[in-house]
């Protein structure tokens, strides 16, 4: 795409959108938001970048192929689901650290599950969109 405005704007929007996606991810436990929406926002940030710079540039920016996010995300989510079983509790029980962390607040296993979902969504959405984009070229 040729538009100079979009090109300039997207370089600035990428970090802002990524930051916003992490904000959405973290507020997810008590407010609207969470891993899925956060992941979608982060994926959209990269899609916007690929609109203006081309998908090769975005892949270069990511260093790895987005599909490699999927196993990491799945692993994190699956572990956070099944860690409670080690303590004899049912799957997916929320475990919480007693002390709140600065900035983030209370951290529990649900956050790690959300983080896993976040990574899977980024990986899956980008893989799907890049695959379709490569087909259409």
């Amino acid at each position, binding site marked *: 795409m040729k538009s100079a405005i979009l090109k300039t704007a997207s370089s600035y929007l990428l970090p802002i959108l990524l930051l916003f996606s992490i904000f959405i991810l973290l507020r997810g436990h008590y407010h609207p938001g969470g891993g*899925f929406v956060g992941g979608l926002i982060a994926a959209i940030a990269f899609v916007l970048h690929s609109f203006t710079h081309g998908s090769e540039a975005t892949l270069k920016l990511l260093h790895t192929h987005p599909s490699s996010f999927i196993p990491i995300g799945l692993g994190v989510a699956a572990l956070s689901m099944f860690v409670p079983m080690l303590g004899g509790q049912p799957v997916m029980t929320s475990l919480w650290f007693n002390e709140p962390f600065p900035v983030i607040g209370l951290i529990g296993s649900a956050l790690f599950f959300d983080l896993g979902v976040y990574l899977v969504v980024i990986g*899956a959405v980008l893989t*799907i969109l890049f*695959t*379709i984009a490569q*087909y*259409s070229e």
Partner: protein
Amino acid sequence: MELVLIILIAVLYAGGVFLLLRRSMVKLLIGITLLGNGANLLIFLLGGITKGKPPVIDSAAKLFTDIYADPIPQALILTAIVISFGIQSFAIVLLKRVYVLVNSDDLDDLNTPEEEDI
């Protein structure tokens, strides 16, 4: 509100079934999408519509005292939307691939005869 939704669901289902019965693969895809959306709206409608009462409890209160929107249909719809997103994107890639291989959008051309089997 319910009446509008009922009509909308009927239109989505009817349109979806109609498009599924066409021979074009693109129409098949759109039909699948419409049917999925119709099913989601159906769950939404049958779960009972409550306007402007989110199922979020006031931090001062101990329990709900008012009628509130049922959160389960929303969770179900969210799950169903995510699933249909995955399936539809897969279907797009698959149909694109079929188009490259068969060079036709017509489902009737997808008939490799038995003699060509291995």
